[in-house]
């Protein structure tokens, strides 16, 4: 690298690498005391992700004693009891088991869709923000177009054409979210770019790749994580909205949105509507407040804006 060739290495004082004091546990304790609400959110996320992982590994049946599609018609519409902690649905399936299975769909789609969102947003944001000028002007017009697409309507269209599958949902939800996110990243890149250390690196003849990976990227990681946290909540909400409208993953594998859709026909049995809605709201709520807490810690200037 050019910059390393210019800097005299021998005899220069060894720069002490910055390390946060204390270990991981200390960081966690610090987070809990400074941001109790954020810690609650992180705990909820941990529970939901664990539920999804357990389901993925196939242990949910052992945990609850029921598969998601075990039907016992004699036991339908039960309220919470020792046998069925959250009761049973209209064909006697265990609600807890179905909610745990549902978490797998929500969590997978939430995380993977946002991975696409942030990946694309990062490319657009960095290229547009770093190079500026004509490149920026053209790319921002493309972003304008992307942002103008009405998300839910576009999704209904895509699903009516290609049918509903995990891949279709992940890719489409991911693509639709990228534009807004890229704007935030672009803005931060422009701010970081104006720092003197970036100017210095340019003067030293550092390549674009080096500047981007060593100077820009480390300074925008926090923005990526903050927008990702809120984005995952949003993606989960979109997925369950689609399922609620009847455009989600096909049965029998349960999703929270479809459970809520089914509950519409049984208003006299409120548990059917309460549990999946509570799981969904808590999850979205958790991702939102964790995003808030991260922003308060990393970017105090933006506190409470949104």
């Amino acid at each position, binding site marked *: 690298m050019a910059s390393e060739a210019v800097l005299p290495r021998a005899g220069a004082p060894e720069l002490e690498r910055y390390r946060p004091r204390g270990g991981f546990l200390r960081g966690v304790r610090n987070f809990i005391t400074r941001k109790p609400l954020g810690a609650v959110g992180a705990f909820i996320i941990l529970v939901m992700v664990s539920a999804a992982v357990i389901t993925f590994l196939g242990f949910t049946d052992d945990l609850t004693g029921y598969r998601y599609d075990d039907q016992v018609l004699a036991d339908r519409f039960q309220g919470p009891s020792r046998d069925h902690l959250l009761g049973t649905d209209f064909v006697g399936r265990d609600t807890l088991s179905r909610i745990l299975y549902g978490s797998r769909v929500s969590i997978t789609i939430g995380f993977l869709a946002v991975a696409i969102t942030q990946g694309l947003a990062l490319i657009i944001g960095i290229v547009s923000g770093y190079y500026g000028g004509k490149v920026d002007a053209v790319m921002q017009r493309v972003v304008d177009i992307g942002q103008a697409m009405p998300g839910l309507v576009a999704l209904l269209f895509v699903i009516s054409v*290609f049918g509903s599958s995990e891949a279709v949902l992940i890719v489409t939800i991911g693509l639709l979210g990228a534009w807004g996110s890229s704007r935030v990243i672009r803005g931060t890149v422009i701010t970081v770019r104006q720092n003197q250390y970036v100017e210095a690196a340019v003067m030293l003849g550092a390549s674009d790749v080096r500047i981007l990976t060593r100077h820009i990227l480390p300074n925008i990681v926090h923005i990526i994580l903050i927008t990702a946290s809120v984005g995952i909540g949003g993606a989960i909400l979109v997925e369950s909205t689609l399922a609620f409208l009847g455009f989600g993953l096909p049965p029998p594998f349960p999703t929270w949105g479809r459970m809520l859709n089914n509950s519409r026909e049984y208003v006299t049995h409120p548990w059917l*509507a309460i549990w999946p809605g509570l799981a969904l709201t808590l999850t979205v709520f958790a991702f939102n407040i964790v995003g808030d807490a991260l922003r308060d810690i990393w970017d105090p200037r933006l506190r409470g804006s949104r």
Partner: protein
Amino acid sequence: MQKYVARRLLLMIPTLLGITIIVFMMTRLTPQDTVDILVGEVGYQDLALKEQLRKEFGLTNSIPKQYVTWLGEILTGDFGSSLYSGRPVTEELKNRVPVSVELGALALAFSISLGIPVGILSAVYQDKWIDYATRGVSVLLLAIPSFWLALIVLVVGSRQFSWAPPSKYFTPWQNLGENIYILLVPAIILGLGLSGTKMRLMRTQMLEVLRQDYIRTARAKGLTELSVLVRHASKNALIPVVTIIGLQVTVLIAGSVILETIFLIPGVGQYVVNAAQRRDYPIIQSLTLIIATVIVVSNLLVDISYAYLDPRVKYS
């Protein structure tokens, strides 16, 4: 200012053209085309008929030529016809647009009249219990899905008050009372979701403004606190909130799709869902285009109003 508006209007053209290209591509990239669907509905596979229909619809032309033809039709107000009913899209939408606009306007009015005063109250009583309570509620409002809230309202309504939403829709001209009665509950649910963002933004903006020197000056002049808050502080704090109102049009549209479906309101939102269920591509295609245009125009209005309200904004 006029120059700025003209420039923004010019910039709108490539955006709108880009949207038409995407919407056009969406239907041309589908595995089956319009003819497949039409013939499939009838239930036989007559290749000669299909070929003849494709020629008639101009589907044998090159893609760019098809696009230009289609764009010409759109510009003259011909959005095609529904595959399901055979009626022109504009005809089908004529009665539905006012319903959705009324629902949206009611929801927006509710969210503004709730979000802004609560936000101000929260800022004035910063770090008091009232502030904590409203902040908690606003975060909750952001997380509760409107369709779940609607379900809970239906469940509680039917169990506790034996209330069910009316199933027959009246236009305001037929029966204004009935019309409001039908739209009020979904509008409040939709508005609650929108108000969370406004509460939070209004609170932070007020806190920001209340720290300014001119507020101290206003208080030093001996103005009453109410006058300081209303005439000096909230006016400036409102500027970014106006922006948010414009940007929430997207949320509003998605929300009306959901609530119109649940409460059986014959608006555009319900129609989108029906069209998607029937795979009525021309309908969804033109609705995507129309709604995207609405979003672009409302974003433009936001920018213009922002520049108008805040003279510090440079028109560049």
